[in-house]
């Protein structure tokens, strides 16, 4: 590879605008691949992009997450749901190595990530967004995405200071790529605005754009619809499916908005008190008594 070129030359692609309120998503039936894991039929013969085996973490005696077994297919949109405090975000923090697991294994595309740091996990293929948005608020929208493209550029410090040809080439290509990502999320007109000045919904979109810029094979979205109105949520839903179809990546999302989860997720994992209480397709989850009990309590579940 020549210096200054981008590692992944494929353009992010484009999609047409248009906002039907509900969307049709192609969903394959789930098939068992191990005793505890299911994958969509089309991904079943390939290595799952993510596999957690007996994953757990203990905070001062409290088992925040325990015995977490999940597999996610290479092009699956999966949902992680559960009541507040069930340990959903903790699982994201374990997957990205913000927290170190107390026990268990995380396999990313079949490779153990036990010794990796957060940054290395990202380079290996996991990108994420945050529940409480974590943008670089004082930098421009464009710069936020350029920071996401950091590891896609490969000129060194010397090249940067001396402004060698590789610097100019990589910067130009990166800017073009960044603008393409921004236009996917209708943020291209705001490229030069400060990220912190964007409205809430746009900030959430920018965070997804930044995560995508790191060229992941698994995207983790932590409550992407939080604080959005129904029309924004509908657009988001569409965007998530488009991301999967354009980039051919897997997406795992935490969400409280049930319409979103039931609409677009193929496999859903329900968590309560750090343990999986149910796994399956949206239909299976909807009718599962344990799930209803977790959300409504025992009495509420009885009344239903």
């Amino acid at each position, binding site marked *: 590879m020549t210096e200054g070129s981008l590692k992944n030359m494929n353009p992010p692609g484009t999609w047409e605008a248009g906002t039907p309120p509900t969307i049709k998503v192609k969903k394959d039936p789930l098939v068992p691949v191990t005793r505890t894991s299911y994958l969509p039929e089309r991904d079943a013969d390939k290595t799952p992009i993510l596999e957690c085996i007996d994953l757990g973490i203990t905070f001062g005696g409290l088992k925040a997450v325990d015995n977490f077994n999940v597999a996610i297919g290479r092009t699956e949109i999966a949902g992680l749901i559960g009541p507040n405090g069930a340990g959903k*975000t903790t699982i994201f*923090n374990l997957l990205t190595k*913000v927290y170190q697991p107390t026990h268990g294994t995380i396999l990313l595309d079949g490779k153990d990530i036990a010794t990796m740091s957060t940054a290395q996990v990202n380079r290996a293929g996991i990108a994420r967004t*945050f529940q409480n948005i974590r943008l670089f608020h004082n930098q421009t929208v464009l710069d936020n995405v350029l920071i996401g493209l950091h590891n896609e550029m490969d000129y060194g410090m010397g090249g940067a200071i001396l402004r060698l040809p590789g610097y100019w080439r990589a910067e130009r290509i990166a800017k073009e790529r960044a603008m393409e990502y921004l236009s996917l999320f209708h943020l291209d007109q705001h490229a030069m605005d400060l990220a912190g000045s964007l409205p809430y919904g746009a900030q959430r979109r920018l965070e997804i754009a930044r995560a995508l810029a790191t060229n992941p094979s698994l995207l983790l979205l932590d409550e992407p619809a939080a604080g959005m109105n129904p029309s924004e949520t509908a657009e988001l839903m569409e965007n998530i499916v488009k991301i999967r179809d354009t980039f051919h990546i897997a997406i795992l999302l935490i969400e409280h908005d049930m319409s979103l989860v039931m609409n677009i997720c193929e496999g859903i994992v329900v968590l309560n008190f750090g343990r999986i209480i149910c796994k399956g397709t949206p239909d299976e989850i909807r009718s599962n008594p344990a799930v209803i009990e977790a959300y409504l309590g025992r009495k509420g579940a009885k009344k239903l």
Partner: protein
Amino acid sequence: MKFLAYLVSGISLGSIYAIIALGYTMVYGIAKMLNFAHGDVIMIGGYVSYLAAKNLGVSPLVSVLIAMAVCTVLGITIEALAYRPLRSAPSLAVLITAIGVSYFLQNSALLIWGANPKAYTPVISGTLQLFDGQLSVSYISILTVACCIVIMVGLTLFTGKTKMGKAMRACSEDKGAAQLMGINVNRTISLTFAIGSALAAIAGALLCSFSPALMPTTGSMPGIKAFTAAVFGGIGSIPGAFLGGILLGVIEALARAYISTQLSNSIVFAVLIIVLLVRPAGLLGKYTQEKV
């Protein structure tokens, strides 16, 4: 026996650091600022006590009380004029202002009292002979250690038991929430500065009793060392400041005696660095991880 003598001098030096550090840690805990002017308040306390004893002819104790009163007023004034307007400003702006206040106090002292060192008369003189005169402990050492313990216990009770003390703790944790609970945040911060400055005055008198040369720069290094002590023990923690101050004094005295006079400060700072690497929040501080 020699070791014991070094230890005693270390503990009494450490007690002075501890008294300054107690004031520092309270101010830091509530205002979250590196108050570089704190050391200069010590110097002002020293001068006021010196002048009161010399010109008014009052007893040492009264001179210290006068110094405490002056420093309390000074502390409250500094806070109200220089720091309060910057409460929502970035911390670096507050830091630079504190440096400005420090320069201001030092240069005012230089203009008023001149650069020549003043010979401070110790608040108490004489020594106590122990082990048939093999170990002599000056009364000022005993007084310093006693003062330090009384102040430490007093502050612990004050912040733990009284209403005002609880208000202080609330403000240091979350000013907004404290205000919503009906606590007058400005008054609480003023009070903290008042206490810190009064302690600085006591420390000034004791410091000058140990090394009687009083100059406009007298307070700078003890101020920095006391802050080091507060960080060492875990900033914001009253027992931490006490422990940090004593340990710092002992390490300094022993390093000076057994390793090198020239490198004593370096050794103190090196110990601080090692402690912070092992315990990032100091000896008694609580380490909190950022929530993701």
